[in-house]
């Protein structure tokens, strides 16, 4: 299928180029609707912190003297349980820019799936609970769910992962086709005076080739993130199962040892690392019999890599500092490279600009295909009437 009219004036004899053209046309056409949705929902997500503050959805901690002491972890657990009676704590998370806060995630049971959990902030000094509306519903949550799984759970994620793979193939095939198109044109030529189609063809090629690296990185890291559930399941099978094998036949815990010293215990066995989050017993990041404290590295680069420390939830003995398989590191590094949240506001603006440019490449691609099809249709009809 010669979707884009190579035959006009270029040396297009080669079958190979026709094949690449077919690959480019069909991979792009199939993934375009999904990619447009991802690019559009991704745009507000780049600025989710700023939008939360603007909408008044961000939890604001009370101003208190800088040396105000913090409650211990068990006191915070109790504060959380008092805030939502009948529920259990699944996770406690920490944010770099809010040292006086803990993010609590609670649900009716420890094993409750993430989308049914409730997220809020605890003031670590007073135990006061602060609601985080945008983490539990509302416009930004709709954007996030559309972007992550289209409200369809794992099948939705896997479908989007597949669309991401098609997007990567479309980018690669598009780059191959860039050569025959541009053989006689100087870089960044945009023919303004011939026809609308030629102008958009040149823009599609120009914007496509300059955003190539960014789009590839965001595409690939998006696919990795979409497969996170599978990677976590693999990690549970590979690593966690072996570590907790001695507990396989242990009776379920009726009472947990206090969480008070969890962070100190984890720091002792993972020196120089910082706590990122704690998974309480029974969640998918821990075991039925363990607290898992996820420690992150303290350099910029290693702060995205997590090392779990498994702590027996009745004796508070360290069962293991779990080794990290390579794919968990890939998953960790994929997050900043997909979100664009690691280089300040200028990077967020550049991320949004490149996102909009990608929308233009997608849109112009569909336009070029439609125009080409319309132009070749009469010929096809003639051929059909002859046959």
């Amino acid at each position: 299928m010669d979707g884009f009219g190579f035959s006009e004036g270029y040396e297009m004899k080669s079958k190979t180029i026709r094949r690449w053209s077919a690959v480019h046309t069909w991979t792009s056409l199939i993934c375009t609707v999904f990619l447009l949705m991802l690019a559009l929902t991704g745009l507000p997500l780049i600025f989710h912190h700023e939008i939360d503050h603007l909408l008044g959805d961000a939890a604001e901690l009370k101003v208190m003297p800088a040396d105000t002491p913090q409650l211990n972890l068990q006191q915070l657990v109790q504060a959380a349980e008092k805030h939502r009676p009948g529920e259990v704590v699944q996770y406690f998370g920490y944010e770099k820019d809010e040292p006086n806060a803990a993010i609590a995630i609670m649900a009716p049971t420890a094993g409750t799936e993430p989308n049914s959990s409730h997220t809020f902030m605890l003031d670590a000094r007073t135990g006061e609970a602060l609601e985080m509306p945008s983490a539990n519903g509302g416009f930004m949550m709709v954007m996030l769910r559309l972007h992550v799984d289209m409200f369809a759970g794992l099948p939705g994620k896997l479908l989007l992962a597949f669309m991401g793979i098609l997007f990567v193939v479309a980018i690669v095939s598009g780059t191959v086709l860039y050569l025959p198109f541009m053989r006689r044109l100087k870089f960044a030529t945009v023919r303004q005076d011939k026809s609308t189609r030629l102008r958009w063809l040149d823009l599609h090629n120009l914007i496509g080739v300059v955003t190539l690296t960014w789009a590839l990185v965001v595409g690939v890291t998006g696919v990795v993130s979409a497969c996170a559930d599978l990677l976590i399941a693999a990690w549970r099978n590979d690593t966690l199962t072996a570590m907790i094998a001695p507990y396989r036949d242990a009776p379920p815990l009726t009472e947990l040892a206090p969480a008070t010293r969890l962070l100190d215990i984890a720091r002792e066995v993972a020196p120089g690392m910082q706590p990122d989050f704690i998974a309480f017993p029974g969640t998918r990041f821990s075991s039925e019999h363990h607290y898992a404290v996820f420690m992150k590295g303290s350099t910029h680069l290693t702060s995205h890599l997590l090392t779990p420390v498994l702590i027996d939830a009745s004796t508070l003995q360290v069962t293991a500092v779990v080794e990290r398989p390579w794919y968990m590191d890939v998953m960790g590094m994929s997050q900043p490279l997909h979100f664009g949240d690691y280089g300040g506001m200028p990077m967020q603006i550049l991320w949004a600009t490149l996102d909009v440019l990608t929308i233009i490449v997608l849109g112009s691609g569909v336009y070029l295909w439609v125009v080409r099809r319309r132009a070749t249709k009469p010929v096809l009809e003639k051929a059909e009437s002859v046959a």
Partner: protein
Amino acid sequence: MKRRQSNFWKVFATPTVIALFSAAGLFAALLGDGVWDALSWVGLGIPAILGLRGLLQRR
């Protein structure tokens, strides 16, 4: 064969340089704040500006 190779670099020389800048930009901010962030703004700014310039230019 030789002609084809020179064709290749004639077409891909500039895009390769832009790709290297973008990659450096994506990587730089992972390494630190301050100067590293600024490097990443330059690296990612190049493709963003070139794309916008093409879009906005009129004859």
